[in-house]
């Protein structure tokens, strides 16, 4: 059996430098992912706010009927601010649909999707699809709903979630 004092000295020697190793492990696996996640979530949140604002404005303009499709194609990218990025893969689409409940059932028309940025997210309308109209709520006959949907993604900000394969970008919807 090892004498108790010698054993204690061995234990001391093994513990030397342990704080450095612990800090390296904690820093690598906890602090840095925490920092990257914090920055990623925060910047995506700001981007989502911008996308929501753009989507609301697009829906408002579409429902007012004061602007035609050509004007919307020109104005919305210019009003998108920093969302209208030139970086490859950063961008999205704004989809504007009009759903009507006629006496023959629901019908919908859709403008050509308006591209924001340079590539990025694409998607189809969840309410106005070819051969299928899914109104966001029950509409009475004669009622019209104007729907704005925006898909947007900035892969440069998806440091954490894209790696896990869970990031589908931002989706916003507004009904007028």
């Amino acid at each position, binding site marked *: 059996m090892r004498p108790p004092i010698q054993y204690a000295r061995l234990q001391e020697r093994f513990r030397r430098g342990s*704080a450095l190793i612990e800090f390296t492990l904690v820093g690598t696996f906890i602090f840095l992912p925490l920092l990257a996640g914090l920055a990623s979530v925060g910047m995506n949140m700001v981007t989502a706010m911008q996308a929501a604002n753009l989507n609301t404005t697009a829906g*408002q303009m579409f429902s007012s009927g004061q602007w035609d499709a050509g004007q919307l194609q020109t104005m919305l990218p210019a009003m998108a601010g920093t969302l209208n990025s030139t970086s490859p893969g950063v961008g999205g689409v704004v989809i504007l649909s009009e759903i009507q409940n006629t006496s023959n059932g629901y019908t919908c028309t859709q403008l050509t999707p308006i591209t924001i940025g340079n590539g990025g997210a694409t998607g189809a309308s969840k309410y106005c699809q070819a051969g299928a109209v899914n109104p966001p709520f029950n509409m009475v006959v004669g009622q019209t709903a104007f729907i704005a949907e925006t898909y947007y993604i900035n892969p440069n900000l998806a440091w954490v979630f894209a790696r896990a394969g869970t990031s589908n970008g931002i989706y916003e919807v507004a009904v007028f």
Partner: protein
Amino acid sequence: MIFGRRAHRRLQYGSRRGSEFVEGMIMMLPFLALVFIIIDASYGLFINATLQYAVQAGVTAASTDSDTAVNVQALVTSTVITQSLNLAQPGNIVVSFYTPDMNPAGGNAVPNQTGNVVEVNVTYPFSPLAPLFREGLPPITLTATAATVLTAPPVAN
């Protein structure tokens, strides 16, 4: 041998006494640097989100205000300052008007004509709280922009 075995061991223990404290202090600098980076990043993101919210509130106020362009600009400026928790300064707030074809309307007789676009831009010079690696470096400029269409008819200037 001057010291006995037991005394020698005692000396060895004595030289190691407090080593964990010293080691802990050495690790304190990178640890605090990480903590301050997290605080600074959070603070920067908070400011960015607050400014974004403020400019959106500013353009909403502009779009519904039936007044002269000068008064609309004053309203937007005060709205942005209030909604940004006084983070935005009047000199850093720019209110611009555009025609529907996105040409500047600032020189027009009525810049805030119904159907025109109003754009609000705010910049904020952000200096990190942590006193690390910031000597001689300029502050980071945070920018927030929002735009919408004007819906309220303006009154004559």
